[in-house]
């Protein structure tokens, strides 16, 4: 499956919907979207990965790159993910300590609201 990307804003939060496979072939499209969003002043990003079938280290690199960009503006990049096979990659690489990972968009929004 190819990669499908969409995004919308809810209050101060930009929700990025990702569907399909994030690998060395498709990751540049996600990178471009994250860069574009940051360049347009969206510094609080929530990436919904519930429909991601595959994620490799190239995809992790793109997410880390996005996080570095938003943090430069005191922003945040958090994830929604409950799929064990995707979470496993974050655990293996230690990135669970770097990203906020939530079980649902609502949970992430609630946590984000408390941080305001």
């Amino acid at each position, binding site marked *: 499956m190819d990669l499908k990307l969409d995004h919308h804003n809810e209050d101060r939060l930009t929700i990025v919907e990702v569907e399909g496979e994030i690998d060395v072939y498709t990751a540049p499209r996600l990178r471009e979207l994250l860069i574009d969003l940051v360049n347009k002043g969206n510094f609080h990003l929530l990436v919904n990965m519930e429909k991601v079938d*595959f994620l490799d280290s190239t995809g992790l690199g793109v997410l880390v790159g996005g996080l570095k960009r938003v943090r430069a503006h005191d922003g945040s990049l958090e994830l929604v993910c409950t799929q064990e096979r995707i979470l496993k990659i974050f655990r*293996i690489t*230690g990135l669970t300590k770097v990203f906020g990972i939530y079980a649902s968009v609502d949970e992430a929004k609630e946590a984000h609201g408390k941080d305001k």
Partner: protein
Amino acid sequence: MATVELTFSALPAHVRTARLVATAIARRTGVEESLLDEVRLAVGEACSRAVEAHRAHCPGEPIRIELKDDSGRFEVTVSDQAPSDEIKQEQPLDLGMLSDSFMSGFGIAVIAGLADDVEVFPSPKGMRIRMSWPAATNGHAPI
């Protein structure tokens, strides 16, 4: 022993094909369904790393994958022809140090975390990553 060999040019689009082929052969070889995601990811990581290395050093040269059913193990070897001196790092994570070069080492870290048995052979003539998983002893999954 059954062996499948695959060569592909160093294009990111071919990595998905390599993953699919490896997963299909792993299933056919009798690797447990619960391990197939690990095979898919580990082979994808090895191929992605090889593609990036070839694009930097020798874009015209092909990357080679060998998939073997060997004595109850499913063994995959990914070989590239780009000079390598691969990094091995085990440090606490700090966002500032996650440069692109550090992230390139993540592929190997992910493979090491996934495959049951991994050996990495870096050399000036290219890197060879061999990994294996347990498979059915008769080499054929139940149909």
